[in-house]
């Protein structure tokens, strides 16, 4: 494999080490820039997806077929008779990709304290199961999560402000019930949460699922939603398909929606960012091509007499091209090794301990997801490999023109100094 022309190419690299080092540094830096930039963009996307789905939505949701989009309180899983919720939860959790599952009941209602009244979305949750699906119950800033079986509610900081109510206060909750009556009862504020999302903090009220079912006259077997979390957000669509198939074989007609369908705008954004990966690779290496081409042009120009001698001694132009391309390839390999050597440790370090930029920026929201101001970096092995290939290709493409020029020179003219 290592023929003389390859060896010539390799040795030529060592003739002007400073120039070689500078060219290699440029390519290595390009590699570093692409992999880190793509990793950062993937980090932002992952942050958005994890926060957007993990805060409340869950990575997949199960409803009665006709529940969405109207969200009528009558459209419970299993129809008016309800279903065996515990069995359904067990079935969902046995899926390999599912990490946790929790039942939910929704109602629109009023929360009133003293003179103030505000409209809210009442969400019945199981305080024991919900933390396995979403982070919302973990965002309590005062007091505690409501306990199962108690007439307690958890309200957001904004609603607490509007109602001028705090932990321990009694509030009235009114909601139209499934039997046509106006469900109304007194509840104690057990805690106040802050999610950072204004629409959650101002209008969501978390109630133990049994207490809410009682308020709105739904039997314990009637729930609107089973929400589940998956071990990896990207496994949700496959898990949803598996669960839907499983339900249909056991005679349940349910809608199983992964976040990619519940929140299509997030999926679109993730896809757009992935398309940008290729743009970044393209732009960085397009710039690098000219740098490397310039270097190679200089290197071959300096050696024009030497090349002329080789041609005069009977070397074919193809061999000259081979020697210059192998020089470029060797340069690419050195750059790649250097690039990986500087990129890998920094990537691992950033991934395990993302630099916190909260001193510079506050939290911000994107597609209804709260994004922490950290430089989160995700590993993208496929992109790292692709970038490596792009780097080598860049070196080769950059050498094509100098190689062609060298191979086409006229030995006599060059040697005579023209």
């Amino acid at each position, binding site marked *: 494999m290592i023929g003389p022309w390859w060896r010539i190419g390799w040795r030529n690299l060592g003739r002007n080490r400073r120039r070689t080092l500078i060219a290699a540094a440029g390519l290595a830096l390009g590699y570093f820039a692409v992999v880190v930039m793509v990793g950062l963009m993937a980090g932002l996307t992952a942050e958005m997806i994890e926060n957007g789905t993990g805060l409340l939505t869950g990575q997949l949701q199960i409803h009665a077929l006709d529940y969405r989009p109207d969200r009528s309180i009558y459209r419970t899983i299993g129809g*008016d008779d309800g279903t065996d919720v515990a069995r359904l939860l067990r079935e969902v959790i046995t899926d390999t990709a599912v990490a946790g599952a929790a039942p939910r009941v929704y109602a629109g209602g009023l929360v009133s304290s003293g003179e103030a009244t*505000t409209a809210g979305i009442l969400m019945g949750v199981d305080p024991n199961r919900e933390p396995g699906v979403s982070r919302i119950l973990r965002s309590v800033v005062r007091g505690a999560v409501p306990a199962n079986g108690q007439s307690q509610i958890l309200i957001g900081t904004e609603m607490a402000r509007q109602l001028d109510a705090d932990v321990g206060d009694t509030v009235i909750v009114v909601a139209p019930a499934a039997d*046509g*009556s*106006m469900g*109304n*009862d*007194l509840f104690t504020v057990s805690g106040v949460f802050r999610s950072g999302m204004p629409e959650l903090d101002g209008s969501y009220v978390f109630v133990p699922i049994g207490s809410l079912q009682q308020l709105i006259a739904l039997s314990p077997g009637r729930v609107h939603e089973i929400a589940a979390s998956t071990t990896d957000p990207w496994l949700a669509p496959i898990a949803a398909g598996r669960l839907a198939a499983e339900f249909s074989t056991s005679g349940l007609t349910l809608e199983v929606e992964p976040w990619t369908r519940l929140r299509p705008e997030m999926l679109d954004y993730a896809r757009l960012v992935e398309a940008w990966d290729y743009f970044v690779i393209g732009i960085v290496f397009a710039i690098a091509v000219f740098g490397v081409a310039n270097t190679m042009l200089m290197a071959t120009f300096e050696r024009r007499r030497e090349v002329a001698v080789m041609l005069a001694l009977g070397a074919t132009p193809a061999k000259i091209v081979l020697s210059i391309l192998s020089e470029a390839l060797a340069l690419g390999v050195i750059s790649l090794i250097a690039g990986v050597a500087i990129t890998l440790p920094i990537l691992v370090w950033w991934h395990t301990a993302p630099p916190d930029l909260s001193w510079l920026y506050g939290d911000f929201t994107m597609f209804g997801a709260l994004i922490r101001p950290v430089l989160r970096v995700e590993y993208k092995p496929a992109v790292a490999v692709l970038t490596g290939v792009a780097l080598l290709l860049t070196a080769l493409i950059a050498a094509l023109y100098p190689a062609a020029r060298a191979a086409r020179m006229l030995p006599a003219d060059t040697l005579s100094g023209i």
Partner: protein
Amino acid sequence: MRRPGYAAFRTVLVAFTVGVIGAASAHAQRTGRDIIDHVDRIMRGESSQGVATMEVVTEHWQRSMTMDIWSLGTEYALIRITAPKKEAGTATLKAGDDIWNYLPRVDRTIKIPASLMMGSWMGSHFTNDDIVKESRLIEDYDIAIGYEGLRDGVEVWELDLAPKPEAAVVWGRIVYQVRKRDMMPTWARYYDEDGALVRTFTFSDYKTMGGRLVPARMDARPEDKPTERTTILYSELEFDIGLDRGFFSLRALRTGEGR
């Protein structure tokens, strides 16, 4: 506490009003506005007291409630549910643009926030907004006579109500049909901003109650759920019974005074 000059002001006002009405009747022509104003006042008088049954039929349940109703002008109303037992004592007070509900189960009064004005009142097909805005037609809408003539052998007006540009209303258009013979409303159709029919109120069972001819029955039917309806049936109605504003207080709402 009569302010100086008030009597004079009132005299001027009365003179002006009489003048305007005189002018209107001199033309022997009723405007759409007059007709709607008349229809608006039929059920109310200066003050009124009545007993009504509200029957609500939905896809999922059907229930009937009996209630006592008091009103004063167009600004005040008090409704107290007397049956069934589960709901008895639940009351609604309307004062101007505000609505309060009294909930006997928790013995608390709550004010309905603006964001819930389009919410259902007591599970019926009426919204809280209907209760507040019921009497505002002539203020919030430009009224024109869209059709005048025979419909099914009865002489009627059909009035087109278009919201005034500055009016905070939810309907895109309302069409009211009123019988010419006795100025009784027969139906009202409510359209959304895209011109689609949303619901229809039908009036029937015209009878004399408290000395006036009134439609004793009103059916509300939502267009998107043809099997559903709310029917209000008046069994007693009296007018000009001398209620004053003090009757329509939050205290009265809670305690049920005045029964």
